[in-house]
């Protein structure tokens, strides 16, 4: 059985100029103990995905359809209090590393303790929990402003694992951290994941980070999933033109050559191009791409791409 399965998820936001579809018919699954990545640029809907899986979309946004299955529980039909209990205990989130995920006026330990208490668990062994994410003793007594960015993010990881969830969603966990600290935090995340045998959904925009961390990768463009494949396949041979160009636009440390960006602009979600949303920027686009929306299909074992010519 899958640790987490998303089936036909659709999320939209009401906007004065029309409805914005941020997540459009997305399906994928995380196997137990798997590291799955979801990569996309700003406005691709990847962070909305994270909130939708946690059932935390706030108005004017709403989930329009689809199923979110955590093990055999369908999160999309759970009542308010049941979904609250599932958060953290079944599916936990490591927030964006924006330095602001901890309450500035509460001691760090208290912020772990209240998470346990609200799930009916007597808070204890918080020091041990901190040690597991590599934080020194005494951290529980500290306030967030007394910790560095990397330490704060470890505290968030400690909170995320305190009830041993089966799935951890990490939404750009290192976006505000320096590269050196980023590696330390990602290493901590990898260690606790192995401890827990949990599956990780890593959401981000950095293809390099994905290539080094995840087992399988989903690529999002304009709210749609355009490719899913094992990471080695994506690095070796990306099937969707967008994936291919995204990788090519990244600076490499191995060879120095002219940087190639992707021409054109990311589309407006409330005004998507017809057919394949990427066709205006795609060098391989044909008439068919303008007319017909390609759906994800299996190219070969475990490799899916939403392109007519993959």
């Amino acid at each position, binding site marked *: 059985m899958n640790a987490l399965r998303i089936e036909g998820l659709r999320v939209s936001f009401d906007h004065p100029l029309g409805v914005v579809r941020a997540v459009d018919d997305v399906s994928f699954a995380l196997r137990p103990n798997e590291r799955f990545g979801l990569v996309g640029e700003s406005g691709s809907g990847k962070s909305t995905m994270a909130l939708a899986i946690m059932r935390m979309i706030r108005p004017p946004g709403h989930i329009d359809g689809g199923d979110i299955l955590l093990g055999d529980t369908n999160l999309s039909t759970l009542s308010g209090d049941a979904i609250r209990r599932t958060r953290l205990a079944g599916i936990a989130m490591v927030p964006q590393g924006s330095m602001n995920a901890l309450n500035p*006026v509460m001691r760090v330990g208290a912020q772990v303790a209240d998470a346990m208490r609200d799930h009916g668990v007597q808070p204890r062994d918080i020091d041990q929990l901190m040690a597991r994410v590599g934080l020194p003793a005494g951290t529980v007594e500290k306030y967030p402003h007394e910790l560095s960015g990397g330490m704060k993010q470890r505290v968030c990881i400690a909170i995320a694992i305190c009830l041993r969830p089966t799935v951890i969603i990490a939404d750009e966990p290192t976006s505000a951290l320096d590269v050196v600290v980023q590696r330390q935090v990602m290493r901590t995340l990898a260690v606790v994941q192995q401890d827990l045998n949990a599956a990780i959904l890593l959401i981000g925009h950095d293809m390099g980070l994905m290539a080094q961390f995840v087992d399988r990768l989903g690529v999002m463009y304009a709210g749609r999933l355009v490719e899913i494949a094992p990471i080695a396949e994506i690095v070796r041979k990306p099937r969707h033109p967008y994936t291919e160009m995204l990788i090519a636009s990244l600076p490499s440390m191995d060879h120095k050559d002219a940087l190639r960006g992707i021409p054109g602009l990311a589309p407006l979600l409330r005004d998507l191009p017809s057919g394949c949303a990427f066709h205006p920027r795609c060098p391989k686009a044909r008439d068919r791409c303008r007319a017909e929306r390609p759906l994800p299909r299996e190219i070969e074992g475990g490799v899916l791409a939403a392109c007519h010519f993959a």
Partner: protein
Amino acid sequence: MRALYIARRFAVFLLIVWLAASLNFFLPRLSGQDPVRTKLLAEAQLGGYVHAGIEDMVKEYNQKFGLDRPLWRQYLSYLGDTAQLDFNYSISNYPRTVRDLIAEALPWTVGLLGMTTLLSFGIGSFLGALLAWPGAPRWMRYVMPPLWALHAIPFFLLGLILMYLFAFQLRLLPIFGGYSPGASPGFNIRFVLDVMAHATLPALSIILVATGGWALGMRGMMVTTMGEDYVTFAEAKGLRASTIFLRYCVRNAILPQTTALALALGQILSGAVLVEVIFGYPGIGALLFQAIRENDHFLIQGIVFTVIVALGFTTFILDVLYPWLDPRISYQRT
């Protein structure tokens, strides 16, 4: 860090005391002539047995603040007197001292203001917080707009209206004073109830006006706080709505409100002066009104000084308590 912070706040408090004292001394002298002297001389010329004492005061005043003495000497002896809380005799209540009169009136005002400030701050902040919360009860939608409208009205104006409705028309509550004439002051049920009945209308007019302001401020802070990442993360932690509301939203949103409390105290007091005047409440405000009417400069100066010192001190206490509410503060550079 903490000690330094407190020391700095205390220095500000002393500065306020000194400024208030100096203002009292210099402002009346700005016009060129000394209005205190003018008034004293006028009273003395009236003659009569009370004014025999006044003549002594004139002598003493001239000796201390005579024009022949340099201004800085006058200023120093004034500061010396003030430091000993010696504000001289009340001109219109001679031979009572200004200090006695103030000591008599102060508990009334402190009681009225302490109660109304705490109540309106508490109720207002609570309503404001609840209003920003998505699950706000329906009745709030009908309660809040009138409260906001009331917030725009001066305290004493509402006092006048309440007085007309409840005291004059319905005759539910006493109309005037701090207690019934003829009641014997003392700590007994009868008198306490009498005092509370008299305080109800003045208190109500302050609370009804001040609550809306606190609610408005708190709602704004709540909306900002609820957009913070730590609230989103708190929700992702699967916390109960009540935990998120109290420990992650209200707890943080109340901080700027507390800072505002220090500033608001001064304004509430300004407004309360007029409420006391309207209701003839025997507090500092009414005493001040009487002093102004009778041109009793010593009394006016004494009251202004006392009130400013009291407010400065309250602010100082709030400042000292603040790092306990917000642990970041004593680390920040100010």
